[in-house]
């Protein structure tokens, strides 16, 4: 963003517009925000299509084939338009303002997190010096939105979904936050830019491959906890359709429903991208010297693919098992990793 703010006055001058100097950062902010929003919406649309297509082929089906040519490219756009045009139903006994607010909160949480999303050295809205921590923090807003949605619907299934979301969230925030600690200890920074920069020089310098694999294990834990906080299978209990019909968004329809959908897919990109930046070397390539946004996007895409792959393979856990895994498996393992990494750093 700062780069944009730096070049913006020149561009504006060329275009022949005069903007008071004080407004330039604000303008840059607006431009960045709209770019992030557009990228988020578009990538969510692509991802919805990709997931349906992949799910189809995992199951020996074809997935979407009609809208927009042979591969159904435009399926998710068509779905989006359909959702926008659908009637927006609010249940009679719902808490109307909260019911309306919830989807926006969910989207807002993911949207804010994209501010520190490190696509490449230059392509980053803001390199906050607490980058990774900031993302974890604002992601909690999404969970609040989910819980609010479940509660405000005034539906028993939705309430159960919200309760599960809350329990799951409280359990998995801890391993997820702790899993980044080994990386932070190694990189001596919370800034995503410097964390990625510390992994330059080929595949073997990626944190995930650093012996004795404390960071490798914490990568796994981060990924699993990320799945849980995204409510993706096998941790999709808050919306478990075979148990809770649709969980927290049972009562949502039309555009508000599509907001939840969008947030989920944008969240997948977010968690995958974070994992790629933290453990897989971000924008650095396999060989030393290679770098670029392409690499980052490739790694993110691969991790997203793994998420989809997992969803179409595994059964769902039960809520007590989810909490068990969070507290009694992931947390001890990640604590061991943190301890090990800290001992390595202490010389």
């Amino acid at each position, binding site marked *: 963003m700062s780069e944009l703010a730096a070049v913006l006055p020149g561009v504006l001058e060329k275009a022949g517009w005069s903007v008071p100097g004080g407004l330039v950062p604000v303008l840059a902010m607006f431009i960045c925000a709209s770019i992030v929003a557009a990228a988020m919406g578009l990538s969510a649309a692509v991802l919805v299509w990709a997931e349906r297509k*992949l799910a*189809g*082929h*995992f*199951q*020996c*089906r*074809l997935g979407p*084939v009609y809208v927009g040519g042979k591969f159904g490219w435009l399926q998710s756009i068509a779905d989006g338009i359909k959702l926008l045009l659908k009637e927006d139903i609010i249940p009679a006994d719902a808490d109307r303002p909260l019911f309306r607010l919830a989807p926006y909160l969910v989207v807002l949480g993911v949207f804010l997190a994209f501010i520190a999303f490190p696509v490449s050295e230059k392509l980053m809205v803001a390199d906050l010096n607490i980058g990774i921590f900031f993302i974890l923090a604002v992601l909690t807003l999404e969970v609040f939105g989910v819980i609010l949605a479940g509660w405000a619907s005034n539906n028993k299934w939705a309430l159960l979904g919200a309760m599960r979301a809350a329990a799951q969230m409280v359990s998995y925030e801890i391993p997820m936050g702790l899993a980044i600690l080994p990386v932070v200890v190694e990189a001596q920074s919370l800034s995503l830019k410097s964390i990625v920069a510390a992994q330059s020089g080929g595949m073997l310098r990626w944190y995930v491959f650093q012996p004795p694999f404390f960071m490798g294990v914490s990568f796994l834990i981060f990924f699993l906890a990320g799945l849980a906080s995204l409510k993706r299978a096998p941790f999709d209990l808050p919306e478990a359709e075979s148990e809770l019909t649709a969980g927290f968004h049972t009562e949502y329809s039309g555009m508000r429903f599509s907001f939840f959908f969008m947030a989920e897919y944008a969240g997948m990109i977010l968690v995958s991208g974070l994992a790629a930046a933290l453990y897989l070397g971000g924008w650095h390539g396999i060989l030393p010297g290679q770098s670029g946004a392409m690499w980052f996007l490739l790694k993110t895409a691969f991790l997203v693919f793994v998420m989809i*792959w*997992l969803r*179409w*393979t*595994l059964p769902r856990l039960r809520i007590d098992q989810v909490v068990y895994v969070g507290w*009694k*498996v992931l947390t001890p393992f990640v604590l061991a990793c943190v301890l090990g990494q800290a001992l390595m750093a202490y010389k």
Partner: protein
Amino acid sequence: MTAVRTYFSDVFMGLWTALVGMSITLRYLFSKPVTEMYPDVKPRTPTRYRGIHVFEEEKCIGCYVCAKACPVDCIEIGVVRKGKEIKITKFDIDYQKCMFCDLCCEPCPAHCIHMGPEFEKASFTRKGTILQFATPKTLTEEEKKVEKVARK
């Protein structure tokens, strides 16, 4: 000690069986889908397929056996009999009721009704689901008097 062992084996088995399952789904990701492209490619129905009836009017002798055999009484037949001459004025099958059980075709002495290969006969109206198999005929006054319409 067993508790510790089960704990670690649980963690390991959880990951391992997930990988095994993922290997299976991955294999099918690259295998040929089994989807039938239905509206684009019509499925080939087997010869014994029990779809919409095929009715051969010239063979029909108007004996009502099929209507009697029908468990849901969905066949309605109109016959004009004049000596040896038989005119089928009506042969309606109500597909809202029909359950394609093939019981009407078996007892037919003239073998004039069969189950056909067709299955796409959805309609937007209730009336549209009643198919009229007999060719429409104009009847004389005299014929109208002897016409027998029945659903037995």
